[in-house]
């Protein structure tokens, strides 16, 4: 670990025809951290990860992963990284053990070490009962644990996980994150992509991607405290009417529904935002509780992706 960052990229860009899937992304990802890519579908998470793994050539810009240039030095890099693809990519028609043994052979683990690792991982990821089951017949959670076992079999320094929990129930997701923290404690750097806020919240640091561009970056706490708007929480019987009323206020930049409540982002330079909003709602005869709250990650997300939409600087 001579290089200061596990991953460094400068203006990393990838175009598919006229579509810019990844747009000048500059990253500095430190070692032994869980680093998140947060973004909706199509925001370029997978494409960025593929470029960092050396599977796609950048159209522009460059990246250094574990001190190696990609894609030029990708072959040397391969034994040092693990990659869990978004779509399950082990063999449906092989059993759990056969899959793991195969991956071990492909990474040239010596026979004895291979058996030992496979045994360890079967136990660690609670696959002992599925050892001889075909991967294709397993549940989403089981497959995901198998995929993680396969990606970590050769003990990579750096792990890429592309939306690892998308087909998994909440309990399995929690367990999965426990496994990630364990790996991270052991020194593994983890880059994980997600579109779940609660998962992003768990990362040490994260990058928010929007239509290929990196729109915000930093630890979740810092992102939340540095939000450029005031966040108001509105609870009302008539949420729909309240929403319509809020949308008419100029200073309200956006309104989003979070369960039974609304979150409104208000321009920071508006004085007394609570009173202003309350007055408007009263005027419409809407009974509501309005309260200034700390920004959540969801608010940050809305804030940064909105800003980009309205900014005229986009080429």
């Amino acid at each position, binding site marked *: 670990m001579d290089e200061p960052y596990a991953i460094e990229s400068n203006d990393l860009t990838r175009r598919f025809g006229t579509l810019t899937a990844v747009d000048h992304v500059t990253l500095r990802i430190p070692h032994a951290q869980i680093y998140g890519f947060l973004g909706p579908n199509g925001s370029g998470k997978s494409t960025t990860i*593929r470029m960092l*793994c*050396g*599977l*796609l*050539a950048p159209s522009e810009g460059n990246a250094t992963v574990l001190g190696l240039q990609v*894609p030029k030095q*990708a*072959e040397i890099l*391969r*034994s040092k*990284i693990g*990659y869990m*693809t978004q*779509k*399950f*990519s*082990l*063999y*449906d028609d092989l059993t759990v053990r056969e899959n793991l043994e195969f*991956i071990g052979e*492909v*990474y*040239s683990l010596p026979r004895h070490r291979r058996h030992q690792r496979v045994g360890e991982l079967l136990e660690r990821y609670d696959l002992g009962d599925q050892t001889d089951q075909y991967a294709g017949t397993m549940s989403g959670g089981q497959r995901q644990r198998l995929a993680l076992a*396969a990606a970590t079999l050769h003990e990579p320094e750096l792990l890429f996980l592309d939306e690892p929990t998308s087909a998994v129930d909440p309990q399995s997701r929690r367990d999965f994150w426990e496994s990630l923290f364990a790996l991270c404690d052991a020194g593994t750097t983890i880059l994980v992509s997600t579109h779940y806020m609660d998962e992003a919240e768990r990362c040490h640091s994260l990058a928010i991607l929007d239509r290929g561009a990196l729109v915000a970056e930093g630890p979740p706490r810092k992102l939340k405290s540095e939000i450029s708007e005031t966040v108001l929480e509105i609870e009302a019987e008539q949420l729909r009417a309240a929403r319509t009323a809020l949308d008419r206020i100029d200073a309200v930049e956006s309104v989003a529904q979070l369960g039974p409540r609304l979150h409104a982002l208000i321009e920071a330079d508006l004085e007394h935002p609570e009173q202003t909003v309350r007055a408007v709602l009263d005027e419409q005869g809407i009974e509501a509780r309005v309260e200034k709250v700390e920004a959540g990650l969801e608010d940050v997300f809305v804030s940064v992706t909105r800003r980009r939409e309205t900014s005229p600087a986009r080429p």
Partner: protein
Amino acid sequence: MISISRGTAIARKELRQLLRDRLTFGMIIGIPLLQMTLFGYAINTDVRHLRAAVADQAGTQRSRMLVADAEASQVIDVVDHVDTAQQLRARLRDGSIHVGVLIPRDFERRIQDGSRVAAQLLVDGSDPLILQSALGLRALPVAGRERRNRRFGGMQTFEVRAYYNPERRSEVQIIPGLIGVILTMTMVLFTAVAIVRERERGNLELLITTPVRTIELMTGKIVPYIGIGLIQVTLVLLVGSILFRVPIRGELSDIYLAALAFIMASLSFGLLISTFARSQFQAAQMTLFFFLPSILLSGFMFPYDGMPRPAQWIAEVLPLTHFVRMIRGIILRGASIGEVGAEAIPLAIFFAATLALALTRFRKRLD
């Protein structure tokens, strides 16, 4: 209620998708065109320009005229002159000629006599179409014999001796080539599909992230199929010799050597297809496009000699052409691999070229 408009909606959607799927559309147009031109070219039961060698032991003016007349009929092309019947038979066996013209020393006397045939045609009978054309030469008129012919009840000029398949059973001719046809279909398809399937199912994205090298991936993919191919060869040989009583005149080891060369060429072509095909279905379509000309132009169905030049050029590129020549030589004519081994050279070139192309086209990348 059955709704016509719903049905029409489905039909319109289907047609729209069909027109957008270029390969399928290509097949709809291409297969009839390909079949028609290939069949049109290749089906020619009246085979001409059979390669022939002459052993003219009489060496008279009349014998030379007879050979010239035979050639003028366009049934045979004389490619060589030898001295003995033995040499003719050797050239038949190694496949370099299909017809041997043997004019005996007492040719002139036989002409005068008129009750005996004047000369012999030694014909490779393993292909019934060739034999049939050669039979057309039997009554070729020879100077000074016409009158007597009538008197002696129409004695033929040539006696035709069919070698290798005297009973003229078609299965005898078909089965050795069938080994190649079966291998073409299965070997090309298996390898093409084997890689495309991994791409389709997403396995490849994982695999190319590992330290596996392209060459390891490719050889790992084809080696199991070599074994499968050899099992298929064994199966056809067993069924052919037990059920259809096809005589196996050559050495088994030679048959397997020839099959091995052919299997390798087919497998590497399958790999090449896999670098183009985006889905297993596409791989199957491309295989079919290769299979059709192979089966029609290789000499398996119609004799090579009867095909026009352009068809022969295509045939020379196809591995099946060379395999059919080798395998018929070994199984039906008892040729050794040494005698027909020259046909393995184009196979080796085909193998090396397609493999090199497949390797350069296959990158451990997604783009």
